[in-house]
């Protein structure tokens, strides 16, 4: 099958043996329900109840209502470019194998042997034609099909092997190289789900000649922060750049113009673009910034004039696609004596426990750039956005305490809520840019937090079993 058609839904959901066991509804405890209702009410005032960042019952409900329902990022197709290539990945906390099977199709297999449940994939990534379970030796092809059973003639004479292949994510789709999966049988297609935000995502995925490719393996590290702290920050929080990252700007790892400086008329925030929101640190199209890429690596072939102009003006952009995929496209340097160069980073905030996440980060570069440029761009990414990144070190440091306070009895007894009111009437000068040529709501100043409210609004929608991709709450405008 072709990977370029952007639509590779396959298999009827749980066509294998799962229907023998009754399924459970996404139940939520009354306590979690009260917290979620509180979010619905207070978000209209621009206030976010602290509890969402650390509560056992909320966390359990998130795993079911959000990660059990939404499209979740799995990986980039360039990570599994050859048949048999695989990588172990997670949806919520659930283990899956992201694999290109022998027929070239990308699959997301549930990493649990259909015999007694053992893990069949031991490595983080590799290439294999088969996954063999170490417990009793059942062997599965990289398509998930059950291919071998030890002592089958004596032990499982009547078994229909077609029924006992590995389970897989109900739906898998590829959007321009980004592979997502959903473990819900039904729901919007990936493109419907991404909705208006596709317009912005396309700018990032289509600006480079030949598209983008992943370099190396993803960085993985753990933090005592809730997964939503990362999603919220990238969704985007332009306000923090000038303070939290002041040292980085001072030393010269990035240009002051992209630090979200207030009063710079060209900056935009885009909110309520269905699945996402974004901060665009813009200069003018004539500046031909292109996220720091040399002009020979960019192309206008797949973009509208407006999208191309946006890229030409853009030195930095962050955004979050609900629930836990974020990105940064940035012109920066790891060495203040060198020029700024661009890279693209995808980041996934994987829930581990309430107030605890595992951070995954991929570095992408233009696929047709020179080897020298790719290595240079990778170095810039390591020096800025990686576990040791001069920017990222401080992000993880400043989120300290959010989860701790959220888990407190005090927050519970006193109804502690955090302030997300920037950009609401009477707060900042940010107003809607009526002439903006892209979808969603564009703001003529980065001093507003409708971006974060878009993320938490989508969270509220998903937690109340509504489809995400809307404007909630609408009143704040």
């Amino acid at each position: 099958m072709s990977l370029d058609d952007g639509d590779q839904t396959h298999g009827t959901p749980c066509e294998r043996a799962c229907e023998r066991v009754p399924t459970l509804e996404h139940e939520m405890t009354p306590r979690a329900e009260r917290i979620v209702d509180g979010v619905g009410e207070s978000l209209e005032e621009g206030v976010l109840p602290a509890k969402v960042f650390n509560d056992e019952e909320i966390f359990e409900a998130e795993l079911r209502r959000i990660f059990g329902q939404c499209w979740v990022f799995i990986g980039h197709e360039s990570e599994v470019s050859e048949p048999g290539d695989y990588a172990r990945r997670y949806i919520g906390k659930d283990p899956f194998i992201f694999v290109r099977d022998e027929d070239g199709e990308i699959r997301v297999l549930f990493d649990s042997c259909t015999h007694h449940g053992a893990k069949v994939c031991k490595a983080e990534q590799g290439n294999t034609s088969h996954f063999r379970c170490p417990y009793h030796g059942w062997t599965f092809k990289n398509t998930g099909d059950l291919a071998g059973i030890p002592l089958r003639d004596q032990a499982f004479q009547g078994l229909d092997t077609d029924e006992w292949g590995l389970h897989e994510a109900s739906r898998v789709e590829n959007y321009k190289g980004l592979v997502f999966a959903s473990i819900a049988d039904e729901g919007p297609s990936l493109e419907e789900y991404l909705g208006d935000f596709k317009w912005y995502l396309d700018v990032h995925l289509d600006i480079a000649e030949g598209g983008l490719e992943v370099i190396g393996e993803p960085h993985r590290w753990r933090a005592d922060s809730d997964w939503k702290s990362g999603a919220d920050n990238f969704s985007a929080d332009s306000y923090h750049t000038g303070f939290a990252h002041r040292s980085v700007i001072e030393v010269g790892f990035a240009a002051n113009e992209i630090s979200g400086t207030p009063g710079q008329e060209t900056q935009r925030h885009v909110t309520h673009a269905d699945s996402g929101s974004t901060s665009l640190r813009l200069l003018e199209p004539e500046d031909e910034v292109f996220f720091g890429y040399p002009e020979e690596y960019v192309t206008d072939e797949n973009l509208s004039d407006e999208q191309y102009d946006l890229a030409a003006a853009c030195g930095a952009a962050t955004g979050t696609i609900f629930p836990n995929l974020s990105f940064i496209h940035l012109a920066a340097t790891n060495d203040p004596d060198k020029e700024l160069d661009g890279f693209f980073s995808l980041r996934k905030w994987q829930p581990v426990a309430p107030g605890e996440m595992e951070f995954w980060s991929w570095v992408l570069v233009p696929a047709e750039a020179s080897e020298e440029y790719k290595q240079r761009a990778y170095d810039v990414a390591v020096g800025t956005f990686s576990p040791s990144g001069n920017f990222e070190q401080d992000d993880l440091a400043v989120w300290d305490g959010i989860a701790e306070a959220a888990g407190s009895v005090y927050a519970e007894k006193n109804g502690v809520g955090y302030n997300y009111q920037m950009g609401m009437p009477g707060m900042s000068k940010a107003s809607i840019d009526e002439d903006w040529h892209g979808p969603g709501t564009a703001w003529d100043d980065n001093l507003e937090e409708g971006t974060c409210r878009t993320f938490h609004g989508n969270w509220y929608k998903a937690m109340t079993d509504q489809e995400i991709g809307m404007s909630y709450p609408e009143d704040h405008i």
Partner: protein
Amino acid sequence: MSQRATQKPDHELHYECVSFYNHEAELLDTKELEQWLELMTEDIRYDMPLRVTRDRGSDRSEFSDEGFNYREDWSTLDARIERFQSEFAWSEDPPTRTRHFVTNVRVKDVDGDELSVKNNLLLFLAQGEEADGTTISAERHDVLRRVDGELKLAERDIRLDHTVLPMKNISVFF
């Protein structure tokens, strides 16, 4: 190790390396990072590759040749150190308490002015009121070069014993 393998161990060389590492660890643990940088040659290569769990039969190294947590030269190390001097470098506020334990120092090869030295590093880190701290274990593959009679670090490859890092950021040197 060729010739030297048949000779008695070179105590003096070994002692000199151990002394170098003890001094280096002291500078790191007391945050004298500018002096620490002076221990590097100008062409220092300072790498920490990602470690990846691969199939047991895989012929690929577990240490990535494409993915890195650090891939530094003198200038990028200098810039990182400069940033730490800022009052806005939040990852080091409060400063991480570190203790570098360097053991199992093995001089593997001598080539002119350069020594290839492997050693083990156990790095303890704690910050603020964090009670239990974090322990990172690694092997370091170094090249020490004699410059004007003194040993300097010319290459370091930090080979972690971790795949998923058990820490929220890397704001210290190894």
